[in-house]
């Protein structure tokens, strides 16, 4: 009988806190600046320089903790993690160790198997290292760019509650959503502001004790997370099934070879000699500050999707698409609220929501671009509402609205102005329509005769002629009037 195995996976995620300045100094955190231009004595670790915590970074870390259901430790401590590497300016990293800022949280994930709650062990604050640029100098020299040194990070340590690569990916996506929607992190995997390490082990199904784990590093996309973990589970299963043993080690995902490779074994593991950083007093988040941060935590993204389905007439798919980015979600909410207001209750909330959702998905998203937590929209959400209000009150029809939107994007003009300047308004005045209908019918006695003779298709000819003469009108209205006039005949 062959043994069946299950995977045990826990993720450690490093997220850059979305601040303007670094964790312990006033240097900029902007990405892509020329090397070594955002540096000072503090982040360079010059002799005599001292760290001072960034209050905004702490507030964001607490916000992340609250959004993930953690208990916030109101007096936590910074600790030094001691090791040598050229990208580490002080010979130690300021992190947190035995007294982290947040503990005991959770995150709900949804996979094909349903919804599951995943535990979060802790979320602590730390500073990033600099960036080694190998071979950037003359010959084989390694140069170091200290712009990144001291960037504020949170490390989110998840419980080993995940059982498949699919769950791991779902966890990571859900976590990214939470961090982006709370404004804590910009979710940018390419720029490395959202990074993930995975601890993977296997054990026979039914066994409680964990197997020996391997740590996977450098997995920088959702696709690779899934592939790397799938590969690693298969590797460990093959190893154990053939009588081998998993060795505790750090492995890295090679996207070119599509497999995990050994980086270093546990024997080379370092003793970091953690101790409380004597340069930094206990990190105190008092009741007033905690309350202030609590108020700043927005509605959870999952709750928002449910509410939109319940109140704004969206499908689950709509809600998913419109929460692909926090700014898009805000845009949608602003536009649908604005439309509802503009129509003064003539359209129910769910119908207004659904109209806006459809239009944004079909037209607007094509011209929205996002970068980190920012997004640029072709026009304000209010303009979208103004445009859709024109459709609602039958000034223009849905097809014309698309053309008007193209004009709005190109010129930045208000939809009303475009409609007026281009004469796109439908004729709504039924007496004006009746006059034209009578004129057209009078001018085509032959066609009228064949209609009377039972050729119903001739009606279409009349509609075309009338619409051309009116340069746009409400088709339903034209139809009504035409039928009446023909019946008189």
């Amino acid at each position: 009988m062959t043994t069946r195995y299950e995977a045990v996976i826990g993720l450690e995620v490093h997220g850059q806190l979305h601040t303007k300045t670094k964790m312990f100094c006033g240097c900029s955190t902007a990405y892509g600046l020329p090397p070594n231009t955002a540096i000072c004595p503090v982040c360079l670790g010059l002799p005599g320089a001292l760290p001072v915590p960034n209050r905004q970074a702490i507030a964001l870390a607490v916000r992340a903790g609250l959004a993930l259901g953690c208990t916030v430790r109101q007096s936590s401590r910074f600790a030094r993690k001691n090791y040598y590497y050229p990208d580490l300016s002080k010979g130690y990293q300021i992190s947190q160790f035995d007294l982290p800022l947040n503990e005991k949280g959770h995150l709900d994930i949804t996979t094909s198997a349903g919804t599951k709650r995943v535990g979060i062990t802790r979320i602590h604050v730390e500073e990033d290292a600099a960036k080694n640029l190998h071979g950037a100098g003359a010959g084989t020299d390694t140069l170091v760019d200290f712009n990144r040194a001291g960037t504020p990070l949170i490390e989110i340590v998840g419980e080993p509650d995940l059982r498949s690569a699919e769950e791991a990916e779902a966890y990571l996506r859900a976590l990214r959503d939470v961090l982006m929607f709370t404004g804590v992190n910009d979710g940018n995997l390419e720029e490395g502001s959202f990074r993930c390490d995975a601890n993977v082990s296997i054990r026979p199904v039914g066994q409680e004790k964990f197997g020996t784990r391997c740590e996977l590093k450098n997995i920088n996309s959702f696709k690779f997370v899934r592939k790397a973990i799938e590969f690693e589970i298969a590797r460990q299963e093959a190893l154990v099934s053939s009588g081998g043993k998993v060795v505790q080690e750090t492995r890295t995902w090679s996207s070119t070879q599509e497999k995990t490779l050994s980086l270093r074994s546990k024997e080379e593991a370092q003793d970091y000699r953690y101790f409380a950083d004597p340069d930094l007093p206990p990190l105190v988040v008092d009741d007033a500050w905690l309350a202030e941060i609590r108020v700043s935590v927005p509605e959870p993204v999952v709750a928002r999707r449910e509410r939109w389905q319940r109140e704004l007439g969206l499908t689950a798919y709509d809600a998913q698409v419109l929460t692909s980015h926090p700014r898009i979600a805000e845009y949608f909410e602003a536009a649908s609220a604005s439309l509802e207001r503009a129509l003064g209750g003539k359209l129910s909330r769910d119908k207004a929501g659904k109209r806006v959702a459809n239009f944004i998905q079909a037209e607007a998203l094509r011209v929205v671009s996002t970068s980190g937590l920012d997004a640029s929209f072709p026009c304000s959400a209010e303009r979208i509402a103004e445009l859709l209000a024109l459709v609602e009150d039958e000034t223009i029809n849905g097809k014309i609205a698309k053309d008007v939107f193209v004009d709005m994007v190109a010129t930045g003009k208000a939809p009303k102005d475009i409609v007026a300047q281009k004469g796109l308004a439908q004729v709504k005045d039924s007496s004006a329509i009746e006059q034209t209908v009578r004129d057209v019918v009078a001018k085509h006695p032959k066609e009228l005769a064949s209609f009377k003779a039972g050729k119903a298709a001739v009606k279409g000819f009349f509609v075309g002629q009338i619409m051309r003469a009116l340069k746009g009108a409400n088709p339903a209205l034209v139809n009504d009037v035409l039928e009446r006039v023909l019946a008189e005949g």
Partner: protein
Amino acid sequence: MLHAASASALRERVVSGELRAVDIARSALDQIVGADARIGSFLHVDGEGALAQAAAVDRARAAGETLGPLAGVPIALKDNLCVRGVPATCASKILEGWIAPYDATVVERLRAAGAVIVGKTNMDEFAMGSSNETSAYKLVHNPWDLSRAPGGSSGGSAASVAAGMAPLSLGSDTGGSVRQPAAFCGLVALKPTYGRVSRFGLIAFASSLDQIGPFARDVRDCAIVSEVISGRDPRDATSVDLPVGSYVSELGRDVRGLRVGVVRSTLAEGCEPGVVSAIDASIDTLRRLGCEIVDVALPTAEHAVSAYYIVAPAECSSNLARFDGMRYGPRVESPDLLETYGKTRALFGREVRRRIMLGTYVLSAGYYDAFYAKAQKARTLISRDYAAAFERCDVVLTPTAPSVAFGLGAKTKNPLEMYLADIFTLPPSLAGLPAISVPCGLSDGLPVGLQLTAKAFDEGTLFRVASAFEHATDHHAHRAPGFATASVGGAA
């Protein structure tokens, strides 16, 4: 003779127009040229910078501006303080050639007060030592007896003031490094409460203990400069936001009824007889002034030396990790990264390497609880002892050091014996309390220091008692023979 004048007197004469700051600076620089070859107290003299700062003071006066409390007063700074554009070596080969690109907070405050920085003083390497003999560059000779040590680790700062090269200097005190050399050189020095003076720009030895403290030849000068450098600094997260108060206004105040705590048990043990008799006489003086003398006990203070030699090396092992040759200072290049680290860091001297190894060991997995955690507990207990003592008294009186200045080379072979030179200065350091050392007599012609310790942030009371004591005695008037009357430089 300018070099014998006090800071307060020099400032008066600058304000009145009797003296130009530039002339005072020249006189100090001349005295350094004339005397420091014998003493060895300076590692770097900044003549050009000093004259420029002095000229700025003279210009400010000519423009009718209000002059600061240290206008035109020369001051020497320990070489672990950063002064923009000036070398800072910590008396170590590992920082040879490094020029600080920024000013320490205390330097900014001194500049704003009109002080004239004349140079950087010799010290034990990275402030690790009690005799200044671990300097990688040269020895410092005690101006009172050139064959003796000036004390440490701020030996150069002490000797420069004792030898009349500047009326003031700054040192740093981790376990006694301003108080003990002040005692050995017959000076007044304050170790402020931890958190009172910003450490920004002080190259760290042990961050939870380090405080910058001044040397002066009398209590008034010490009070003036202490006031200038104290106060909250947003760049040091451990600096405390409490009003500093006026130290100078404490001078000359009555001390009748003040309770002085004496720790009888430790006094006799291991102290030279000359020190014991000077202290006994000091107790009598304070009693005569109307102080109430009470017995107090500090039972856990006996563990101070062991606790200190765990905490301080632990912090130093981490603080000194940044000296890896990667970003500044010399690098001993090797094809292998680890070897480069090893060879570069071999530039540290023996005592520094000893403490880095000790500190690395006590923080290691499996040893942390037995050593570091226990030493932290000892600190808490020592603080509690003081809290209990301060229920009964306002200041605690002890000798500053168990002996007068010892001979150069006398203790270098035995680090443990050297460590014991700090038995009286370590307990206040571990408890973070303010302590002052004032001259209290001579033993065989060498100065003895009296240490007074007060409650946290109660420097005012220290100055009050020290000032009354100084007023009632003439100990501070004793000058190092050979440096008391030497006339060098252009007096006005």
